[in-house]
């Protein structure tokens, strides 16, 4: 019994932190209708700064902690001003969510560069000695955590419900255009909400720092847990955030204590998926129903056009020749391996492009299918001597089955709920990969996976694997190109822009979404199997959520809806750290920054922008000043 209470106290401490982060989600969502995933990152930044000031510089804690919070808020305001606010005006809410995922990656990369990868802990605010109540011992820091949570909740509630400023904030949430007409500076309100969210995240970060150890990637954990808590409670409800956070904290702690520490996350995630299916608006529904759909129509979509047939065919032949002779030119095995890895990831990226670029369905859990494919093929070939090709096939079948089950949840969801459901799936697979030690080797990974082989011939060198991957890439690419330029691709693009209008023309929206989802799952699985065969090893972090986010970054940087674009993004992010070895520590930061930059300044991606130039150039040659829409408008009276 006492032990139970002790566990509950621990759960409540962690839950309070989730609750505070969830409050930040809730606030930004209420004001902008978008999800800001970068909050967990700010919590870590604040904790790191206060550690530097308090421990390394020897400042007294009462000075170090407020300074750290203030510095973090300044950083937040600057980032918000130049990324989040302009993004809200240009991008759909689902894309804003990805952009903030990029911000989170960027912040984590920044922390990695400045503070390294070792964990830090602050001294407790009021001494090490815990409060002893009979058999229960409560760290005094717990009271600081509870106090900070209550303060944040009360302060936010007062601000939003009781003040004139709060009314303006709520007006922005209800209808930004009308609010603008009433003289409310919507951009400033957006920035204010972003800053406030940063403030409470920073407070959460510094108060929790003494009771847990923090390192650069703890930010993701905070963000994901806070996001889950916010959705469980009801995303636009402040009390919901508190309830959701405490529930999540208690559930994971109790699961860890009484079931298994390895499955505690899995249990929380299953709860979340259950909530998404049964009560998509959360435990405490708020009056702001349907808020997320207000800005659902995508505002910008890259339009590239098609180059002249000749141009495309000549470039394709040229690219093929270069691809064929490349391994003979490159003598450095490291670089060649990098290219092979990019080629393997390209398979998963093409699948993601069909799903995200063409059908417009956000997925943050693509690496989950990669894990299924990789572990299945690896396990079967180690333990049952199954030939790799058969292992790959079994992995694909298994992935498609998982995708079918998951689609029961995802097909009905859109925008941020879809992002959340796929993220949850990725995390679930992640925790299974860590938990099922007998099957996957647990955290240390699955070792001794053989190289890829067909009929006794083993492809163990990067050179031989290069040609295998090249062959598979070309087959998949050509097949998808065919489908994407025919009716299938057109139907997907129609769904991406306007599901209602697509259905009105007889496009079966659910069926097409499902097919796109299955294609992406199968390709991710194939990619995962090849990945495992190439490395002869697979560990959970190689196919974890960070990988899913990296996929999104690669796709967006390269260009969505172009199939080939993701290869550019994949090559860029894979090759940069290989070529510039000493700069590898900057990789996380750079990939985050590139993702944010692409969303803001190059929405059609690197490849898309290049294609656009080619198209413009080749079009101009054919018929001189083609009639433009503007000219037509001028002609008419």
């Amino acid at each position, binding site marked *: 019994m006492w032990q139970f209470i002790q566990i509950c106290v621990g759960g409540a401490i962690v839950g309070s932190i989730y609750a505070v982060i969830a409050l930040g989600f809730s606030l930004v969502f209420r004001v902008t209708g978008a999800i800001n995933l970068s909050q967990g990152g700010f919590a870590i930044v604040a904790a790191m700064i206060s550690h530097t000031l308090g421990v390394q510089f020897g400042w007294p804690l009462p000075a170090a902690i407020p300074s750290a919070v203030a510095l973090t808020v300044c950083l937040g305001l600057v980032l918000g001003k130049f990324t989040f606010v302009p993004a809200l005006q240009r991008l759909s809410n689902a894309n804003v969510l990805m952009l903030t995922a990029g911000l989170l990656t960027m912040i984590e990369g920044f922390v990695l560069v400045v503070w390294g990868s070792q964990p830090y802990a602050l001294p407790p605010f009021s001494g090490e000695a815990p409060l002893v109540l009979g058999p229960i011992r409560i760290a005094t820091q717990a009271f600081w955590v509870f106090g900070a949570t209550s303060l944040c909740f009360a302060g936010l509630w007062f601000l939003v419900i009781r003040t004139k400023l709060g009314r303006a904030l709520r007006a922005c949430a209800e209808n930004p255009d009308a609010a603008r007409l009433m003289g409310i500076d919507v951009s400033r309100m957006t920035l204010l909400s972003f800053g406030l969210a940063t403030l409470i995240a920073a407070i959460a970060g510094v108060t929790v720092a003494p009771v847990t150890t923090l390192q650069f990637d703890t930010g993701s954990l905070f963000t994901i847990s806070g996001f889950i808590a916010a959705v469980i409670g009801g995303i636009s409800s402040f009390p919901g955030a508190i309830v959701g956070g405490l529930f999540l904290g208690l559930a994971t702690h109790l699961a860890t204590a009484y079931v298994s520490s390895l499955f505690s996350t899995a249990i929380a995630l299953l709860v979340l998926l259950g909530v998404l299916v049964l009560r998509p608006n959360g435990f405490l529904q708020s009056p702001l129903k349907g808020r997320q759909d207000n800005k659902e129509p*995508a505002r910008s*979509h*890259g*339009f590239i*056009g*098609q180059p002249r047939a000749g141009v495309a065919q000549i470039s394709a032949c040229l690219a093929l020749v270069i691809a064929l002779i490349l391994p003979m030119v490159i003598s450095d095995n490291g670089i060649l391996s990098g290219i092979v890895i990019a080629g393997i990831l390209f398979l998963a990226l093409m699948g993601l492009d069909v799903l995200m670029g063409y059908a417009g369905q956000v997925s943050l859990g693509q690496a989950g299918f990669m894990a299924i494919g990789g572990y299945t093929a690896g396990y079967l070939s180690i333990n049952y001597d199954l030939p790799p090709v058969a292992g790959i096939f079994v992995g694909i079948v298994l992935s498609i089955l998982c995708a079918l089950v998951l689609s029961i949840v995802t097909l009905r969801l859109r925008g941020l709920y879809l992002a959340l459901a796929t993220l949850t799936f990725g995390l679930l697979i992640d925790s299974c990969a860590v938990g099922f030690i007998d099957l996957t080797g647990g955290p240390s990974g699955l070792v001794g996976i053989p190289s890829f082989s067909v009929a006794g011939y083993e492809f163990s060198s990067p050179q031989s694997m290069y040609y295998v991957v090249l062959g598979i890439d070309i087959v998949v690419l*050509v*097949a*998808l*190109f*065919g*489908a994407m*330029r*025919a*009716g*299938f691709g*057109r*139907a997907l*693009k*129609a769904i*991406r*822009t*306007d599901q*209602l*209008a*697509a*259905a*009105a*023309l*007889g*496009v*079966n*929206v659910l069926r097409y979404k499902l*097919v796109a989802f299955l294609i992406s799952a199968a390709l991710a699985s194939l990619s995962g199997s090849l990945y495992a065969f190439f490395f002869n090893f697979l560990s959970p972090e190689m196919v974890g959520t960070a990988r899913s986010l990296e996929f999104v970054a690669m796709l967006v940087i390269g260009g969505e*809806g172009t199939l080939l674009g993701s290869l550019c993004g994949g090559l860029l992010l894979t090759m940069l750290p290989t070529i510039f070895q000493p700069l590898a520590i900057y990789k996380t930061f750079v990939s985050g920054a590139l993702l944010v930059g692409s969303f803001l300044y190059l929405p059609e991606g690197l490849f898309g922008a290049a294609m656009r130039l080619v198209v413009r150039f080749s*079009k101009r040659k054919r018929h001189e000043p*083609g*009639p*433009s*829409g503007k000219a*037509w*408008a001028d002609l*008419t*009276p």
Partner: protein
Amino acid sequence: MSLQSISHGEQVPVLSVRGLTKTFGGVTAIDDVSFDVPLGSVTALIGPNGAGKTTIFNLISNIFSCDRGEVFFQGRRLNGMKSVDIATLGLIRTFQSARVFAGMTALEDVMVGSHRLTSHHGGSQVLWLPQARREERRIRARAREMLELVGLSRFEDMHAAELPMGVQKLLEVTRALMAHPTLLCLDEPAAGLNPRESAELNNLLLAIRDQNAISILLIEHDMSVVMEISDHVVVLDYGVKIADGAPREIRDNPKVIAAYLGVADQDVAKVEAEVGL
């Protein structure tokens, strides 16, 4: 039924709406509305703002489900069917605000219209087999013809979403025609068109009607357009059908004039005298 009096009455109507009722909260948006769309006709659905015209479209295409009443399309009951299946049957609608597909050329946008007519052999598309290529060529050629017919050929290669609003509206009509509908439901196709585009649209609708291939149900505000192209008019006011008949009868109906001018029935004569009717 007043319908039986009009010329197409002896044929089986392509669409027939019976006792349609829909309430939103406590407000009755559509109250016991019945009308027919005779085969091969242009039927106009008119009424003041908020009369419930678009709601009727949404009920027919089952974007909302009705509280009471039935809708029959070529004798098939549509209640409870999905929007997709209704479209597949050949009842194609457009929307009040143009809904073109972003990221496509005007030509591709029109090609989406052919979706319900094409065979869906995903496999042959993936492998880009001759059969899929032939079908693709055929669709492309037909989409070009349709654009030619509507006079939009010059926009073929341009980004659909960046075209002027008037062109987008015409494009949406073209896309609907591409689906080769049995019944084409147009929700204010002329709204947002300039006089020239509007005239082009009228010519197009008249051409369609003259070929007698497609029946049209049309929501329209501009009475001159209604009088020129429709041969059957249904008038709604506050969700209730107040008149149903040939354009000429409708023009002289005091209830209709009252609804449009917003006066009580007994004052109509006075108002008419004042405005010189």
